C-alpha cells in the first residue's frame, strides 16, 4: 500500500528542480563566461589597437615608406617620415642572435632533463626552469645595463656595450626557459618504445637521441623555437634597456639598434593623442600583433600536431 503511494510521488516529481539544479546551471554559466572572456578581451584589444591606428593607415600611411624607409622621424617639423625598416632590422637582429643563444641552451637543457636526469634531479631542474621563466623582463634589462654593458666594453674594447650583442644574449637567456619547457614536453611525448627499439638494435645513448628521439620530436622542437621567436618579437622592456635604443640598421653585433616594441614604449607617452605620430605607433602595434599572432599560431598548430600523432 505504502509502496504504491511512494511510487506515484516519484512519478509526479520528474520535473522538480532542486537546489543542486540551480547551482549546477549557475556554475556552468560562470565557467562559460570565464572561457569566453579571454576571447572577448583579445578581440577587444585588437579592435582598440586597430581603431587607434586606423587614421594613420588611411591618411599619412604609405606602404613603401612604412616598410622600406629606414628613417623613423615622426617628430621632424618639416617632413615627418614613418619608416620602420631600421626598427624591423633591430628587432630581427636581436631576435636572431637571441635564437642563436637560446636554441643550443634550451635544446641541451631539454635533452638533459628529458633523457638523462632522473628522479629528484629531474623534478628540481624542471621547477628551476619554470622559475627562470618567471623572472620579470625589467630584471633582465637591468642585468643588460649593469652587468653585460661593462662586460662587453671590457671584453671587446668597444665604446658602448648597449647593442645587438647585449640585447641578443639577454633575450636569448630570457627565451631559453620557456623553450626548454616546450622542447622537453616534445621529447617526453616520444613513446618510450622507440627508445627501447633503438637500444635493442644496439644504438648508443647518443644514437638513440640523435637518430630516433629528435627526429620523432622535430615538430615539437620546431614549435618550441617558434615560441621563442614570438617571445623575442614581443619583448619590450629588456630590449629597450639593452639595445642602446638608436635607430640604426646594424652592420655588426656591436651596433646599437632600436626595436619595434621599444619604440612604442618609449614614444607613446610623449605624443598627442590622435596625432599622426600617435597613430603611426599604433600601426606598428597592429604590425607586431599580426606577426606574433601568426608565429604563435603556427607554433601552436605544430605542437598540437605532435600531440595528435
Amino acid at each position: 500500500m505504502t509502496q504504491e503511494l511512494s511510487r506515484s510521488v516519484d512519478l509526479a516529481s520528474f520535473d522538480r528542480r532542486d537546489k543542486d539544479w540551480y547551482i549546477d546551471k549557475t556554475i556552468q554559466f560562470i565557467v562559460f563566461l570565464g572561457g569566453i572572456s579571454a576571447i572577448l578581451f583579445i578581440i577587444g584589444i585588437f579592435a582598440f589597437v586597430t581603431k587607434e591606428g586606423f587614421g594613420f593607415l588611411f591618411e599619412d600611411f604609405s606602404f613603401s615608406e612604412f616598410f622600406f624607409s629606414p628613417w623613423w622621424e615622426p617628430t621632424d617639423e618639416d617632413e615627418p617620415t614613418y619608416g620602420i625598416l631600421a626598427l624591423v632590422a633591430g628587432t630581427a637582429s636581436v631576435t636572431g642572435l637571441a635564437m642563436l643563444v637560446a636554441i643550443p641552451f634550451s635544446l641541451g637543457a631539454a635533452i638533459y632533463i628529458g633523457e638523462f636526469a632522473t628522479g629528484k634531479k629531474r623534478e628540481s631542474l624542471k621547477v628551476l626552469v619554470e622559475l627562470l621563466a618567471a623572472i620579470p623582463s625589467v630584471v633582465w634589462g637591468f642585468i643588460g645595463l649593469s652587468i653585460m654593458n661593462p662586460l662587453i666594453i671590457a671584453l671587446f674594447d668597444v665604446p658602448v656595450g648597449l647593442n645587438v650583442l647585449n640585447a641578443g644574449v639577454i633575450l636569448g637567456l630570457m627565451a631559453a626557459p620557456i623553450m626548454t619547457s616546450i622542447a622537453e614536453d616534445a621529447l617526453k611525448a616520444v613513446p618510450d618504445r622507440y627508445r627501447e627499439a633503438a637500444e635493442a638494435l644496439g644504438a648508443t645513448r647518443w644514437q638513440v637521441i640523435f637518430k630516433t628521439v629528435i627526429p620523432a620530436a622535430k615538430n615539437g622542437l620546431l614549435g618550441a623555437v617558434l615560441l621563442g621567436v614570438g617571445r623575442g618579437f614581443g619583448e619590450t622592456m629588456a630590449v629597450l634597456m639593452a639595445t642602446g635604443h638608436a635607430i640604426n640598421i646594424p652592420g655588426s653585433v656591436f651596433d646599437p639598434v632600436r626595436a619595434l616594441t621599444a619604440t612604442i614604449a618609449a614614444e607613446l607617452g610623449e605624443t598627442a593623442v590622435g596625432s599622426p605620430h600617435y597613430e603611426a605607433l599604433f600601426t606598428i602595434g597592429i604590425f607586431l600583433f599580426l606577426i606574433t599572432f601568426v608565429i604563435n599560431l603556427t607554433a601552436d598548430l605544430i605542437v598540437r600536431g605532435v600531440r595528435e600523432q
Partner: protein
Amino acid sequence: MIQSQPTAATQAMASHIDPETATSDLAIRTQKLDLWYGTFQALSQIDLNIKNGIITSMIGPSGCGKSTFLRSVNRINERLGYVRIKGTIEVFDKDIYDQDVELVQLRKQIGMVFQRPNPLPASIRDNILYGHRLHYSGKRLSRTEQDSIVEDALRQVLLWDKVKDKLNKRATGLSLEEQQKLCIARLLPVQPQILLMDEPCSALDPKGTAAVEELIWELRGKYTILIVTHNMAQARRASEECIFMLMGKVVEHTPTDQLFVTPRHKETADYIEGRYG
C-alpha cells in the same frame, strides 16, 4: 651512460662471442641467476642451457619471470636503472655481465622483438637500414647495395611482395602483423646470432599470429630463437624445446613434445591443462 669507442677488449669479446669459435653448442647458459627489481626478486636460481640453432619457447603464468629472463639476456632490463643481478649469463661462453662487455656489441649479436610492434617513426626502408647503419657506419653503401639489403631482409620475413611498392611510406602505417614482421626484418641485416621474442604475437589477430608463427618457423636453423609466449598452443606448435617457469623459477626444460605429453612435474601438468594461470 655513453658508450665508449670499441676497445681492444671489445674486439676480443666480439671474436669470442662468434659461434664459429665457440666450443659448446649452447647459445645461452645461465648459472644461479638471481634478479631483483628494487627489493622484489623476479628470478631466483635460474640454471638454463639453451641450445644453439633451435627454437626454445618459454611459458608460464603472468609474472613468472619469463619476460624478465628474456630482457636480461640482451641487458635491455638495465634501462630501468633499479635492476640488480647475481649469478652469470653466458652467451656463447662469454659472461655478458663482465666489465669488458660492450652493450652495443652484445646487442649486435642478440636481436629483440617486442610485445607491441615498435617500428620507428620513419620509412619502411629506413627501419630496415637503421640497425645496419648503426653497426656498419664505417663503410658507405651504394644505393643498390642498400636496396639489396632491404629486399633481402623483407623477403626473409615474407613481406617483400606486400610492401615493395611503398618502401618510402611510414612504417607506422602498416598493419600490426606487417609491423611485427618488419620489426623482425630490421634485425636481420645486423646479422645477429640470437633472436629474442617477447610475446611477438600477443598484439595480433589469429591470422596475423599464424603468419608470424610461420615466419618464426621459417627462420628456424638460421638463428637461435628464444620466444616467450602466453599462448601454450603456440609454444607447442612453434618450438623445439620448451621451458616452463613459475614464480621466478624454472620448473621444467625439456623437448616441447615431451613437456606437453609427459610433463615431469605436477605444476607443469596443472598449468598446461589450464588448472591455473
